């Protein structure tokens, strides 16, 4: 008997650590040496089949690591079932940033969220600044999953997502479309107040279609 699940996954981490590259490797099995920095957030889906014919469909939000999008993150993680927090093993500052994200998730996200800490760019091991021991120890202390990957070679990428798929509470109701998503949204970002902004300029030049 096959079971289907659907989960929301969010990727967080400093700009340029390789979040989009990891997702692209996972979803399309591709890699670009030059990727444009993500704007806002990008949505992708991918399904993983586990050994026992269980399928897990991930709805992935790949967020922008640039500082100016920082305030948008709650919108993505507030309903997420799992989060992959990425750092770059060649940049110790990116692990610091990852720690900040993890603290924020622990405080603000769903208490049952599954968090994976992911050290990317293992193909650049010669320039390694973050040791496996250090990251692993931190992950253990915080009760996080931990893995190293290379989006470039593909090493470890499917394994991370598969491990998350296995770890997610598979006892949850099958095809649980809302997942934890039916919750109220305290972190919802407020857009502009449209009622206050009725003075659209240049009415005369506006399109009349």
């Amino acid at each position, binding site marked *: 008997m096959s079971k289907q699940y659907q989960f929301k996954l969010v990727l967080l981490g400093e700009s340029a650590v390789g979040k989009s590259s990891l997702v692209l490797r996972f979803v399309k099995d591709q890699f670009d040496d030059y990727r444009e920095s993500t704007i806002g957030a990008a949505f992708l889906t991918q399904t993983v089949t586990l050994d026992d014919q269980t399928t897990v469909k991930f709805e992935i939000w790949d967020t922008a690591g640039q500082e100016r999008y920082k305030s948008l993150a709650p919108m993505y993680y507030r309903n997420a079932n799992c989060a992959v927090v990425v750092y770059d093993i060649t940049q110790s500052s990116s692990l610091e940033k990852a720690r900040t994200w993890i603290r924020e998730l622990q405080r603000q996200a769903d208490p049952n969220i599954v968090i994976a800490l992911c050290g990317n760019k293992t193909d650049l091991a010669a320039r390694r600044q973050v040791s496996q021991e250090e990251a692993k120890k931190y992950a253990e202390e915080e009760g996080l999953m931990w893995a190293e990957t290379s989006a470039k070679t593909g090493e470890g990428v499917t394994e991370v997502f598969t491990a998350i798929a296995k770890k997610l509470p598979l006892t949850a109701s099958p095809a649980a479309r809302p997942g934890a998503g039916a919750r109220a949204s305290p972190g919802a970002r407020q*857009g502009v107040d449209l009622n206050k902004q009725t003075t659209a300029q240049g009415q005369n030049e506006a399109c009349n279609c």
Partner: protein
Amino acid sequence: MASTIGIMQALISIFIDDGDKLRCINAGQARITFLLRPPLYYVCVSSWGEPESVTRTHLEYLHLQILSIVTASQLRRIFERRTNFDLRRLLDGAESFLTSLLDELEFDLGISTSSLHCLKLELNLRKRIAETLVPTGKTKEMLYVMLTVEGRVVTLIRPRKRSIHPADIHILLNTIKSPSISNSQASASWIPVCLPKFNPSGFVNAYISFLRDEPIIDSSPSSSSTDSIKDGATEAREPSISLICISGTGDFDYVKDWCEGAIKKLAVDGSLRALTKSILSQQTEYTVAEVGVPGLRHFIYKSRSQVQITFPVFEDPYNNTNEKRRLITLYQTLHDAIHAKSGQSEPLKLQYIRTDTESALGWITQPFELYIAISPLLPKSAIIGAANAVVRWVKKEESRLFLRDAPIF
């Protein structure tokens, strides 16, 4: 570079001190044009020979694109705190919006004429698509819904009380087109964007879905004609169709679900396939030959009431970049003259220019503006006849060329 900026700053401040506005400096072949939008200054050095008003429009668009990323009030606040702030820090990762705009500006006739360029489409198909895209339910979440094909608008749906400025549409179109969005391989993006003519000091959210997954098209019931598309002489490339939904509030789950639902409906009722087919079979384009006016080389027709333009594809010789640039510069010169944009004493109704390569006419009336180019061998009287013939043709084709009566909600 640093010294260039130093000279620019010195020039600008001399004029500011005199309480004067520095607009441009002519230096031989080149012209240096300034646009002051404090706290930012824009400078362009150009030797294309386009009218000054055109360069200013380009600089203005650059400014609008920057505002779309950081908003006017953010900019003001930052530069109030630190006058020597390096703007690049705020624009990190957004450079591609500016570079793609710079590429676009030169040839974008919609921007040159401050109007919308719609996709030519059968009236009924456009109508069916639009009806599917009218927001239902929590319409407060929705501000504008727009379906586009490679920079051209298929339909645009807006609330009854709110029109949309063409400049905001151009900024949105450029945003979607820039590689950080269009190359992302994602099925959708959710981005904060400031539409400067709508509200220069706040963000709205844009949910952008790319309707490029083949399964959507293949899964529709009558797929028998897919082969004929592939066999045709046209390239069997998937056209990039995007659905853009602008939301003023942050309820993004709602917006996402609504957009996904709308896309599914478009796929199921076959309109997505019909649209793709029209594009691939090039029914969404037309050549100047179809207009059937001897000697006619090219034209731009602007419907002033709809604020929309239409023009045929750029064919030989204008498929060559230099020739195309020359023609567009000619159009821009006519546009400048009939709108008296460069301090001419009064606008002209008609402006005729004859060069070695073509004769061109700009003509403005209450309902339209027309810019046409014909063979330079034809007499001046021929161009008037050609202009009238183009106007008649456009009138006849109007229902396909322009977006009219788009639903409002």
